[in-house]
């Protein structure tokens, strides 16, 4: 038990180092900035649009949805890409070769991936607050709501990323397995336009996935209560949100360790070597 706890502690430290290295990395920072520019640019172009039936501007309404979808993208694509890469480049094998290393590695991933949400969201939110009006969680209750929605989101969505990262055959396939489904979900989950614009059955599909609920949850934290009248059922549907995200969380927490362990078991020097060969061919 103490050795397990120790491995977890080393893993937390690993996550801290990774996070710090990521914040110092030009590559990661420019990725965040590029994403922020696209999101803010889109909102800025439509800054004068007032949403029908309200006195709220489009950016005010769309910003929380965007933040919700960014969270989902980050929590799925982050671990999926990182796991696929760490498997190929031997990071995971290194972890396997030291006592408690795999547990530490996973803890490190959780810290890094949850932690990198902060710069990713802040870099969109802070400039947004200066550009647009009414763009902060509504009151103390709003902030508290923001916090628990984010925490629930992490628990529900991070395992999905880990599962995709454990199953995806190679780094090159991560977009097909992760990014494309995410983009489709973003398109049907009321992120960019009201979900009511879609057919009923498609609304049903969207509501089965965390993307819709994260958008809704973030709106419920940021927007005044009157804005709930724009939603389906004219309500924030807090109960349903907790239920759906909890189901995803339970599924993920059961499946992710199993698939992760299966993947780690298959790691060996020759599998890393084979990936290296493969990558050399890609370069050529």
């Amino acid at each position, binding site marked *: 038990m*103490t*050795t397990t706890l*120790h*491995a977890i502690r*080393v893993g937390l*430290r*690993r996550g801290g*180092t990774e996070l710090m*290295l990521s914040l110092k*990395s030009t590559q990661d920072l420019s990725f965040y900035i590029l994403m922020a520019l696209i999101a803010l640019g889109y909102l800025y172009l439509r800054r004068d649009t007032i949403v029908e039936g309200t006195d709220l501007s489009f950016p005010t309404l769309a910003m929380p949805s965007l933040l919700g979808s960014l969270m989902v993208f980050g929590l799925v694509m982050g671990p999926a890409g990182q796991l696929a890469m*760490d498997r190929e*480049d*031997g*990071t995971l*094998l*290194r972890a*396997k*070769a*030291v*006592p*408690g*290393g795999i547990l*530490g590695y996973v803890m490190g991933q959780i810290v890094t991936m949850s932690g990198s949400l902060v710069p990713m969201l802040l870099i969109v939110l802070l400039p947004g607050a200066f550009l647009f009006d009414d763009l902060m969680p509504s009151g103390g209750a709003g902030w508290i709501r923001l916090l628990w929605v984010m925490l629930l989101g992490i628990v529900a969505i991070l395992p999905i990323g880990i599962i995709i990262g454990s199953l995806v055959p190679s780094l090159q396939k991560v977009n097909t397995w992760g990014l494309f489904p995410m983009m489709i979900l973003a398109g049907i989950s009321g992120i960019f336009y009201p979900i009511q614009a879609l057919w009923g059955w498609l609304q049903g599909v969207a509501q089965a996935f965390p993307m819709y609920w994260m958008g809704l949850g973030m709106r419920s934290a940021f927007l005044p209560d009157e804005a709930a009248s724009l939603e389906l059922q004219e309500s924030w549907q807090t109960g349903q949100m907790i239920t759906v995200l909890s189901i995803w969380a339970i599924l993920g927490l059961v499946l992710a360790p199993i698939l992760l362990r299966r993947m780690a078991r298959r*790691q*060996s*020097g*020759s599998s*890393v*070597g*084979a990936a*290296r*060969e493969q990558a050399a061919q890609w370069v050529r």
Partner: protein
Amino acid sequence: MEATQSEVAVDVRDLRMRYGDKDVLDGVSFTVKRGEVVTLLGPNGAGKTTTIEILEGFRLRSGGDVRVLDADPAHGDEAWRARTGVVLQSWRDHARWTPRQLLRLLGRYYLPYSTDEMVRPRDTEDLIRLVGLQDQADQKIRTLSGGQRRRLDVAVGIIGRPELLFLDEPTAGLDPHGKREFHELIHALVDLEDTTILLTTHDLAEAEKLADRILILAAGRIIADGSADALANEIEAKTEVRWTHKGKAHVHATSDATEYVRDLFRQHATGISNLEVRRASLEDTYIALVQKYESGYQTETPTALEEASR
């Protein structure tokens, strides 16, 4: 009971590995005693990597008994893992980290496994000095040269003061200078403490330089087992005798060169010059052995399937 068992670090009996319908390992048996440095030598595709990965606990075997530090590596727990070291061939992992950061972090994993006799992990600064990375300790790992990287790999492998260290093709891809540096590092390790080492190579000169004992693996079996000298004797080593008689060059292969030369002089009292007696080198022995086995016991050579890392 513990005392009698722990004399042997690795005990492999009738190890088998099958991929699909192909036997990569076909009844491999050998032991490695504590403190020994043993090389698994063989041509590409002979099953060296498969063997060492089974012993490391990274790969499950199809059959046979394997004991590594008195445990089955397929079920080795974390405490067992702490007593072994694996030198991996790094490629581009931890590119943003510095050697000092990585060694500090990986060392921490060994803290719960420290005992009075065996202080784990090794001190990071000592380790950096030991592998000669003082000048690169705070550089990003991606900026290290191939040789420096390999020395970092060794540092990671020995950070927990392993009782048994595995190295799979440690010098593949190194230039001659890098190779020599690496060999010196291994010698230093062996002299410094009584680490048991099992390494694979397809480079005969390397095997000869590093190992107390050489196991030759060909076509999925151990075909020879002994010191470099013993191996050269083991195969009925023919010695080559060359001479010139009345301006004409002659070559003759014999197993008893002394007797042959005596005869030669008896027949020709004069006129013999350029006499040269050349014993089979280890390389000749090795090539002869491998050829004999690959042609005799195997109708087709094993595929390079499991040796893709070169």
